[in-house]
């Protein structure tokens, strides 16, 4: 199988200029690859740098050193050095980030929020709406909520809307930041099947899961984050 992600000698250090220039070395010598059809789980205690690594992969954090190659169409783009315009294009089609938090956009209905990634990929409006309805139903969002903006939804409902939005258009590389945190068993199972479907469709997934059941059912491979933790932080 092909590598969809290649991480080469990545290091991350935060410099806090307004706290006397304190340096926080978090990750060092991070190197691994993820193939199509894999779900790689990052394992380790909180504070060890799992979320930091995921954010580096998405280009949300800046690498201090190293490269993060993501296969986009038929070439690799280095997320660590690509210009913003290129990163945005990779994110639009290839690389997505699934968190447990929905960024609520004022006045936009749950249905439109979920359909948006399809529309951005050029799917026509009515097909996108239909598939958004299917996703919301699958994640057990009551139909009476579909036309409402999620600002007033419960935390769990917002989280499921976000998962519906994230999995409606599967991307070749998907980063999962505790997507199942605090979900009930039924919805957790839905998320596990969505992850499996993405994997079988050939996506490469990298995830952090607090829940051990999910971890064991979703993972095809594990990496212990400790092997990448910077010496000073360890």
């Amino acid at each position: 199988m092909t590598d969809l992600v290649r991480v080469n000698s990545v290091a991350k250090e935060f410099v806090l200029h307004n706290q006397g220039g304190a340096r926080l070395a978090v990750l060092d010598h991070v190197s691994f690859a993820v193939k199509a059809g894999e779900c790689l789980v990052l394992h380790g205690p909180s504070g060890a740098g799992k979320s930091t690594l995921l954010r580096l992969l998405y280009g949300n954090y800046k690498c201090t050193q190293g490269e993060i190659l993501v296969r986009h169409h038929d070439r690799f783009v280095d997320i660590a050095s690509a210009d913003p315009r290129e990163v945005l294009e990779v994110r639009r089609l290839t690389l997505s980030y699934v968190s447990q938090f929905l960024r609520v956009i004022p006045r936009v209905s749950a249905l439109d929020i979920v359909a948006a990634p399809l529309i951005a990929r050029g799917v026509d409006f009515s097909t996108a709406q239909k598939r958004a309805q299917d996703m919301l139903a699958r994640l057990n969002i009551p139909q009476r909520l579909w036309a409402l903006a999620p600002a007033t939804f419960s935390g769990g409902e917002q989280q499921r809307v976000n998962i519906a939005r994230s999995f409606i258009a599967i991307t070749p590389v998907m980063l999962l930041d505790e997507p199942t945190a605090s979900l009930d068993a039924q919805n957790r199972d839905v998320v596990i099947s969505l992850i499996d479907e993405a994997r079988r469709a050939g996506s490469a997934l990298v995830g952090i899961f607090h829940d051990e059941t999910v971890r064991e059912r979703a993972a095809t491979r594990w990496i212990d984050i400790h092997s990448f933790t910077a010496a000073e932080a360890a």
Partner: protein
Amino acid sequence: MSGMDMLRDAAALAPSPVLECDAVTRMYGERIGCRNVGFRLWPGEVLGIVGESGSGKSTLLRCLAGLDAPTSGRVIFQDEDGAVDVHALPEPRRRALMRRALGIVHQNPRDGLRMDVSAGGNVGERLMDRGERHYGRIRDVAVDWLRRVEISPERMDDLPRHFSGGMQQRLQIARVLVSGPRLVFMDEPTGGLDVSVQAKLLDLLRNLVRDLDIAAVIVTHDLAVARLLTDRLMVMKDGHVVEQGLTDQVLDDPQHAYTQLLTSAVLV
């Protein structure tokens, strides 16, 4: 993560930037307005410029929009028939370019609207500037644009001075966008509005920019506005750009001391 990243066609296929800002410096005597600013903006991209008052962001915007000439440096606009150096154009041609291809949304709607002309007139006038003479068509387009910015066509014949601040701002946006600019400049577009009105306006701007696939430069001191509306961010301090990059990266992992201060002061 960024607000608009998934929502719009990035401009990867566009062969050339719509705007190129090359080492732009604007001095006021000895004092620096903005210094040595450079970036490129592609079709469909939204660039935010943030910084506190006096940081040079409005000065830069005025240079980019063709309103003030830079002391040195160039502003290159990709027009339909090739690149033009905006400030090297003779005055009448620059004016014509600004009317035809550029749009400016002012912070104060009074600076962008004609307060003694009806709402419909404010929008229709721009079509007449472009040579449209058919009254019925002008009225239809004006009605359509008022609807798009959520102003009831019943208010078509009212004067903007009888509108609320939020409505005036929406009307100004309609007046700017009706002429189909390829590049829009906005100076604190939600400044001076209530929070709930801001949310409505931001949602409207988000959709319009996406649907029309225009490029935009937005000056704001509000990082939440920048997060929601922009793809890329430039941080200015004392006339200099101290940091620029992807909006979510600059806000979530700021590198420069000043950006760290700015982002730690508010939750974004």
